[in-house]
């Protein structure tokens, strides 16, 4: 039981680490593009948000996995 709880914490933490780095990279690229071409800012902003959203999905899957595992604790 304790193993599962520790596993949940680890899973969420590691997923947060990876997704944080990935989203940082995506935001980096998007913001650089916007700084270089301010007139294309809106399009880049939309695309960047979409990319961030898809990256976030990875974390959310881990989050849900944690919930599923929490169901096994009971």
């Amino acid at each position, binding site marked *: 039981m304790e193993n599962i709880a520790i596993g949940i914490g680890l899973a969420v933490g590691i997923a947060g680490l990876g997704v944080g780095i990935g989203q940082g990279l995506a935001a980096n690229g998007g913001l650089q593009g916007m700084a270089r071409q301010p007139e294309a800012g809106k399009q880049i902003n939309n695309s960047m948000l979409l990319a961030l959203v898809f990256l976030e999905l990875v974390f959310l899957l881990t989050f849900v996995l944690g919930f*599923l595992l929490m*169901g096994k604790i009971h």
Partner: protein
Amino acid sequence: MNKFALLGLGAIFIIIGFVVKDQSWTRPEMFAGLQLDLGKTITNIGVFLLFIPVINMYFYVPLKEAMDARNHELESTFTEAEQLRVQMQTLKSDYEARLIKTEAEARETIQNQIKEAQNLRQQLMSEAADRADALIRSAQAEIEQEKNQTIATIRTHVVDLTLAAAQKVIGENMDSEKNRRLIAEFIETVEVAS
């Protein structure tokens, strides 16, 4: 899709959701941690199917109509302003054309007047000259007539004088009628010299 069909479908879904609420298959064991309840899902499908047409009819359609009407009004105002501008332009050009025409007419009238006045002056001058001529001519004729008359008078006087003088010179026996005729004939011939 028909809005009332959506409403009916939503109601049906809500009813189904409440009917299956207590059945065990709506809560899969695997998703217990997430508290998945398919009965709630079905009910929410119904709620949302109700929500879409209600929002569409109550909120979207009036908003869209009002905004369209406003846009239409703005557009019509713009076109109206444009039309007014065009109308004003035509009026202005009309007015300018009329102004030019009036100016030309006025100039022509003035020219005509000047010409007429000149004509009148010419006419008056020629009339005056004519009358002066006529006056001169009549005066000359009068003078001629006076001269002729004076000559005739003088002639008769001369005849009388000559007769008187001849009477005195030649005596009383001469037929005065015959002498008078002789003298007159003589004077006729003399006249050339005068």
